[in-house]
Structure formats: C-alpha cells, structure tokens
C-alpha cells in the first residue's frame, strides 16, 4: 500500500489534473480562483446541513462539468475521507448531547455524529470545487492568475520555480531510489533504513543546490534580471460574466439558507 502510494504521488508533472476539454477551461483563470475561494469561505462558515449539502451537490455538478477523471478524483478524496473516518469515530464520544448508544460506559451522542458529518461534507465540497475549477488549469496558469490578482510578486515567482523544478527533482529522487533498489535496498523499520534515507535526502539536497546554482548562472547568462514577465493578457469575456453571476447568486442562496427562519 505504502509503495503504490509513494509512486502515484511522486509523479508530479506540473500539469493540470487529467481531464477532457470542457467549457470550464474557457473561463478566465482569475474568475475560477476567486469563485472557488468565495465558495470555500461560504461553505466552511455555514452551520447547518442544508447549505453545505447543496454546496456538495454543486461541487459534484462542477466535477461532472469539468470532465475530470472520476476515478482519480475519487481516489484523492477518499484519502482525505479515511482521515475523516477517525473524526467520525471520535467526535460522538467527546460531544455532550442526546445518547445514541453506549460502549464501555462511554456515551456516543447524536450531536457529535452530526458535527463530524457536517465537517466531512464541508471538506469534501471545498476539495471537489478546487479540483474542478482550479486544478484543471496548469500550475503555471494558476501562478499567472495569482499574479494578476495582486499576490506578492516574489511568492508567485517562488511558485513558478517550484512548479518547474518539482518534476526535475522528483526524477532525480526516483533515479537515486532505483539505484538503491538495484543494490537490493528494501524499506524496513530499522536503523539502516533511516540512515540510508537520511543519506538519500542529504544527497538530494546537495545535488539540487548545485543544480540551483547552475540554473541561476544559466539564467543570468541569458539576461535574467530577477523576474519573469507576464505576457499573457487576461481578458474578462461574456462567459466569465455569466459564470460569475450564476456562481455568486448561488453563493448568496447558500448564505440565505444559513439565516434561520428565512423560509418559515
């Protein structure tokens, strides 16, 4: 299990999540970033089930619309939900309220269970919207969108560098791991493993720092004066207006559902 997990996650290619082209790709990157941030804000601060479940439903619709690979998306979400499962097991016992059942003198309460479920729904809704709206763009587009949204320049540069070099370094890591495997190294719970991994990590650091020096020299050679320029002009078009208006009215509906007694 741990082996398969390791390999599926180290293959970062700096690219968007695999998906087929859809109308979501046509929407301006800034609009997608801002909309998903607002969605997270509204859903997380909701305190009843109606708005959060509606949010989750909307998240499913967006996942469907963005034509994400359903299997891969689910695998990512399930990893988080395994963690949520422990929360669902613990919270009923620690929250006071009406008794659901009793184990070893500990009482599980309905309120605790509902609270845990609410957290699960919220976390899933936010993640699915992030996957469908933001993760479908390439990481460098995301960087450019953030730069246009006035995120500090250095932070965006850092992100662009990271996106570029994650792939290079993960390849370096895999190369070194393969070399260790060729020498019959197997991960176990012992001192030898920890020492070898420590050496691997130290070597990875040294190689990467040397590589960073070469990169920076090569870039200076070609006249890099410390910054990238944003050449892509992002324009708000009619589809962006339509999407933001629909999305924001939906968010206002969610906020409305949070106000008690509005529909009574």
């Amino acid at each position, binding site marked *: 299990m*741990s082996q398969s997990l390791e390999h599926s996650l180290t293959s970062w290619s700096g690219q968007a999540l695999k998906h087929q082209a859809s109308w979501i790709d046509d929407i301006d990157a800034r609009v997608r970033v801002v909309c998903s941030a607002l969605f997270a804000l509204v859903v997380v601060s909701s305190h009843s089930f109606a708005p959060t479940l509606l949010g989750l439903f909307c998240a499913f619709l967006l996942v469907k619309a963005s034509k994400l690979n359903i299997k891969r998306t689910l695998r990512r979400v399930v990893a988080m939900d395994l963690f949520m499962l422990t929360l669902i097991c613990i*919270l009923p016992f620690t929250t006071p309220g009406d008794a659901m059942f009793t184990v070893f003198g500990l009482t599980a309460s309905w309120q605790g269970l509902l609270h845990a479920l609410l957290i699960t729904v919220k976390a899933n809704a936010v993640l699915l919207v992030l996957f469908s709206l933001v993760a479908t763009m390439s990481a460098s587009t995301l960087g450019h969108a953030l730069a246009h949204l006035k995120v500090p320049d*250095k932070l965006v540069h850092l992100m662009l560098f990271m996106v570029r070099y994650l792939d290079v370094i993960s390849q370096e890591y895999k190369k070194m791991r393969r070399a260790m495997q060729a020498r019959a190294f197997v991960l176990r719970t012992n001192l030898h493993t920890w020492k070898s991994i420590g050496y691997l990590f130290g070597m990875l650091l040294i190689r990467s720092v040397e590589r960073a020096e070469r990169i920076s020299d090569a870039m200076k050679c070609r006249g890099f004066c410390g910054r990238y320029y944003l050449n892509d002009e992002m324009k708000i078009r009619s589809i962006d207006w339509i999407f933001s208006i629909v999305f924001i009215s939906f968010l206002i509906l969610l906020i409305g559902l949070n106000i008690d007694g509005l529909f009574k």
Partner: protein
Amino acid sequence: MHIVDGALSSPVLISGAVLSAIGVFIGLKKMDYDHLPLVGVLASVFFIASYIHLPLGFSSVHLIMNGLLGIILGWVAFPALLVALLLQVIFFGFGGLLVLGVNTLNIALPAVLIYYICYKGVRHESPKVAATWGAVGGAGAIFITALMVAFSLALSGESFVLAAKAVVPAHIPIMVIEGFVSYAAVYLIHTVKPEFISKGSN
C-alpha cells in the same frame, strides 16, 4: 498533520491566517530575487520528501523534514511552505483552503524556532556534534508541530480536546524516525559539502 477545512473555529482560522501572513511577509523581505532559484529548488526537495513513505510496523509514515528546512532557510521557510501546501491542497487534496494559514503556521513556525535553536549547533566543526544538533532539530520541529496542531484543535472546541490529546503521542514514532533521518542527512552534508550549511542560510 494536515487539518481539513471545516474542523476549526473561525477565531483560530483567522489568527492562524494573520500570523502566517506576518511570517510570510518577513520571509519575503529576507529573500531577494537572487535567491529565488535556490529557495524554489529547496522547497521542491521538501515537497518530494513528504512523499517518502517509510514503513512503520504495519502502517507507514511520511517524512516532514520541517526542522531541516528551517535550519537551511530560516524565515524563508514561511513562503516556501505556504506555496508547497497550496500546491498540495489544489493538486493532491491534502488539507484545505481556508485552513491554509493555520497549517502553514503549524509547520513553518517550528521550522523558524529550530533555526534559532540549532543555528550554532549544526555549524559545529565536528560532523558528529553537528549531526546530533540536526537530529535534535528534526525531532524537535515535529514535537513543536504536534503541540501546535493539538492547540489549534483544542482551542476550536471542547469536543476536540480528546483528539488534541491524542495528537502528540501519535507523533512520537515520526519524531524518532525524523530524528535519525535528520542526523544522517546533516552528517552526510557535513562530510560531502560542508560549505552548504553555512552558505544556504543567509
């Protein structure tokens, strides 16, 4: 380690975000454009490190290595970890968007503390002494991180207190492992490229 969206109360979320923003601001002030390639590459190394899963009995743990990152980067650890966590949320779905501030603070602040505690130690001439300080840094950072995660949970409501109490003991194995791994890493860097530790930090 990663707290998900929806679990924490808003005062905790807001104070975490504000404190992280201050840390990121200080980090960005200390980092010039000349250092960008170096910081970017180092941050990527730590990103990769978090996918190295080591077996532990029947389960497995992943490395965090925020102590070593702090020793090398100092305050710059804040922006580096913020970007790394943001990429992890968006493309892998670890953690959440609104808790980004709290998560960054929980991982980056221990890194900065370790930077000040172990600054002298890892620059010691003897590789063994330096590596021991590296191990202290590696294990210490995990301990402080676990404490901070526990605090952010406990402050969010009575019902999380039990979960908060479980966080620190649950992190003891990874603390031990990280200590040994950091020891070996610092030892190797000291023998192979001693100028790196003294140079990479400014």
